[in-house]
């Protein structure tokens, strides 16, 4: 058995207690952000005709229209913090369908982080597993996201922002309709249920009426805006409407992160073997 399979096999042998813990603590992986078309794709499809559940059916339609079997792009990430600008580039690959996907994010620049990679393995029944490969140490590390409100590797995303959120963990309500950037949108309030721990009290989601796309997400702590994620540069790529630029504002720090997607493609053929720790090691060495 290869090393990565061993590790994965170990993962599947986790105790139910471990699984529960990880499910509870961390449905929170960068695939949601890095895979822009799948943002909030986990909101489940339980549509029932009431005002509140109408909001759910909108979310369900968002998921439906953004589904793809694979995804690849080259991305740039720019963090603008107190006049200091940090740039990074990476290649992102995802394979698999909702709830059972694997993805690899490999940094290509700057030189200090070149070869650093993240392997994300999603599971339909529990939270994802992640490993980070560090070529200079020649070893992988399991990433345990225990503190979801902290920033993700110096960006303005928090770990929680990267979660694939389960629709059952939130209540939705249509607040109204509004034009944003000249486009008609539904404004939907998303509020975590009591059992779900979140740094945010609630979030406001702006969904484009024409293509069922998220345009903006604002997250609040009590009544104070904590983060705003804006989607721009929309284009239809191989039949999937995608916002190719994300701007995240950390309202408390005043810093911004701009993420741009280049050479985006969907539904390419990809091998399962490319989504293993062995592959990371191979590519990193």
């Amino acid at each position, binding site marked *: 058995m290869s090393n990565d399979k061993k590790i994965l096999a170990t993962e599947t042998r986790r*105790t139910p*207690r*471990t699984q529960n*813990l990880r499910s509870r603590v961390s449905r929170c992986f960068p695939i949601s952000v890095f895979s822009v078309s799948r943002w909030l794709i986990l909101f489940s499809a339980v549509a029932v005709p009431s005002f509140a559940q109408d909001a759910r059916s909108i979310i369900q339609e968002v998921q439906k229209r953004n589904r793809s079997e694979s995804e690849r792009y080259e991305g740039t990430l720019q963090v603008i*913090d*107190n006049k*200091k600008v*940090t740039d*990074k580039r990476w290649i992102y690959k995802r394979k698999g369908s909702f709830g059972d996907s694997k993805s690899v994010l490999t*940094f290509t620049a*700057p030189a*200090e*982080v070149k070869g*650093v990679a993240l392997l994300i393995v999603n599971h339909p029944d529990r939270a994802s597993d992640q490993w*980070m490969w*560090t*070529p*200079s*140490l020649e*070893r992988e*590390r*399991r*990433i*345990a*996201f*225990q*503190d979801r*409100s*902290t*920033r993700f*590797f*110096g960006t303005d995303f928090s770990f929680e922002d990267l979660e694939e959120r389960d629709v059952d963990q939130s209540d939705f309500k249509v607040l109204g309709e509004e034009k944003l950037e000249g486009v008609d949108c539904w404004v939907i309030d998303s509020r975590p249920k009591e059992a779900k721990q979140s740094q945010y009290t609630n979030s406001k989601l702006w969904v484009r009426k024409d293509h069922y796309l998220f345009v903006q997400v604002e997250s609040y702590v009590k009544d104070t805006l904590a983060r705003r994620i804006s989607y721009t540069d929309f284009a239809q790529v191989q039949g999937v409407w995608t916002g190719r630029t994300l701007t995240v504002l950390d309202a408390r*720090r005043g*810093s911004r992160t701009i993420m741009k997607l280049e050479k985006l493609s969907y539904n390419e053929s990809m091998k399962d073997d490319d989504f293993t720790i062995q592959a990371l090691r191979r590519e990193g060495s």
Partner: protein
Amino acid sequence: MILLRLISWPYLRKHLLRTLLTTAGIVLGVGVLVGMRTANQTVMGAFQSTVDKIAGATQLQISAGDTGFEESVLERVQSVPGVRVASAVIEAVAATELPGQGNLLILGVDMTGDRSLRDYSFESGDEAVIDDPLVFLAQPDSIIVTSEFAARNHLATNSKIPMGTMEGRKQFTVRGIMKAGGMASAFGGNFAVMDVYAAQKVFGRNRRFDRIDVAVKEGHTVDDVRRAIETELGPGFTVEAPSSRGTQFESMVAAHRISINISSVFALLIGMFIIYNSFAIAVTQRRYEIGILRALGASRGQIRTLFLMESFIEGIIGSAVGLLLGLVLARGMMGYIGGLIESLYGVDQAGNNVLSADPYYIGGLLGGAFALGVLTSMFAAWIPANEAASLNPVIALQKGKAQAISEQETRARGWAAVAVGVVAAACLLFGAYRPIFYFGFLLTIVGALLLTPTLALGITRLLRPLLRRLRPVEGALAADSLIQAPRRTAATVAALMLSLTMVVGFGGVAGASYHSITAWMTTALNPDLVVTTSANLASRTYRFPSSVGEEIRHMEGVRIVQDVSAPRIIFRGKPILLVAVEVGSILQTAPSKPVAGDPATMYREASAGRGLIAADNLAQLRNLHLGEMVDLPSPTGVLHLPIVGIVEDYSDQQGTLLIDRALYTRAWADDSCSLFRVYLNQGVSPLVVRQRILDRFGGHSKLFVFTNQDLRDYILKITDQWFGMSYAQIFIAIFVAILGIVNTLTVSITDRRRELGVLQAVGALRNQIRQTIWMEAVAVGLVGLLMGLGLGAIYLYYMLEILRRDVAGLRLAYEFPVHIALLLFPVILGAALLSALGPAESAVRGSLVEALEYE
């Protein structure tokens, strides 16, 4: 107050020197007490504070001794309900190679999950100062330093710091700077953070963690979560609050603390006798005043209050100056204690300021010492004050009567001393019970003090013929002066006796320790070379992979290489040293002297992994017996093994358990090594092989090679350092003794000024007066010395017993320190003579008329 102003103040002013000398007793007592305890507490406090600061919001810490544990334990801990955050930690002390910067305490953490445990308070706001958090994780040379350390070394982001690692000297890159305060102030700012996985590599930890820090979820109690983790992990792990680390550390330096406590008590006792002496003399000298005051209607209470108030004021002044002296002493001692702890345990606590420890503790200590100084002063003056109060005005007017001790009093003291001695001896019979033993010790000292006047008188009478033979007139006068005023002499002799008792005790313990350690080194510590990861043998920061031993084994000229792991583990709640080595090989090379058990059997059983060999000191401290089954917790479960042998071993003060390496490697899942013992083929030069090893590994590994002689020198140096404080105490004791003699002589001469004047008036030469005083001083010194040696011989027995039973479990042979005793004769007698020079000159230089008019 009126009496104080009209009677006491003029007297004190007139006898300013004596007042100062008396107050010096308290100054010294309080000073030593404060100095030693403050220094000790500051170092201990610094350690605890470091632990607290770097613990952050950590509520529980999980460890498995020095060995650490496998990475998989982290997930098991994270899975325990009630655990909010569980973050892996590697903690190491590493030497920076920046000039004059010493060691850095390095905390290896996983920054992806550690932020909710510790506030890193980065310099330029939040995480941004880790210039790039991803770079920090990606590059194993990343390090975050404190702003204090950065400022001292002119470091900025991306500056380089050279440090010794398991891969040789490496440059680390500053990728973040923590703001001053909080965690960044730990270890005096010599604190740094790096990635836990990089730390594993740098410090040779393989895929192991030292510790897991845990924060508990809301709604769960810390105790419940602790129990849940203990259940999940089993008994091989210690789960405790961060503050418990301080407690463990404290237990490691218990020997030092006990020594300090005994010294402090003795210092105060000596101070008390000096005060008693001075007040007893003051009462004598002022008996006319007392008589007149009583005749004029002053009540006994008023007289008593007058003297107690004087002692109270002297106590306040002496204690205040003593506090200042103590703080100055503490500064000097702190570096010493810090250095001692570093060399013994590899934890450097130097660089912390006095009072940097818990301010409440230091405040309490200073307040307590102040109160103790004042109370000691008043207690010492209590008997003279009572005597003054009960003085019969008629006797008060009869010169000289008050310095004598009545037959009745002598008898009473004698009987009391006999009774106390009998009880003390009885206590020895039941000495197995600690309170009874210590009570007996106390009674022995009390008995000796009760007997002091009688013995002093007796010895002086015996000395009289000798003094007469030396100088017929002067000798007789000197002896008679002491015989006629035993009360004046007794307190000085008592102070001198106590001081010298301490000297004999400490000197005896030091000598016995040296003797035993040297003998042990000869039999058990005989490898030609010892290869370690640190110049400080006690440091456990780095570990070797076992492959290093394998390579050394194949080097030319090498006969045997013994792989040794020596982690500190928790055994029955306290840290001990576990030495894992191939026991069969030890039997061939350096079997320790057996104390219990058959050597062949014990080594065979231990070698087969069927038993443990305990060091005698561990057996003494933990009451272990041959054949006793003990539970030894390991990360893979509890080892239930018998003690198959008890041997003489001085490897560690807390005690050592010897286990076969194969069993250790299995149970601890650790094949790393702390050191290698290397035996060479006959005729092969250790220096040549040493160089071969250094050539092979020195450039890219943290490796030190000690020759056998280096090793012996190192251990003797440690022993020297350990007893260094004793030597300081010996010096202080001798100083106190001299102070006491000067005080007594000054008082004696003042007291006898008229008598000396009369002698001069009837034709005595100045030289005769001088020589009388010199001889008197030497006689006091000799009496105190003889009694000090006597009591010291008993005291040494108690010290060795305390060392065996409660401190280090060491069974040291009783050996009276003859060389120290011989050295004390010229030192004390010379000091006595020197201290008599001033008073003698003052006696012969004064106006004869004034002297005759005196009193």
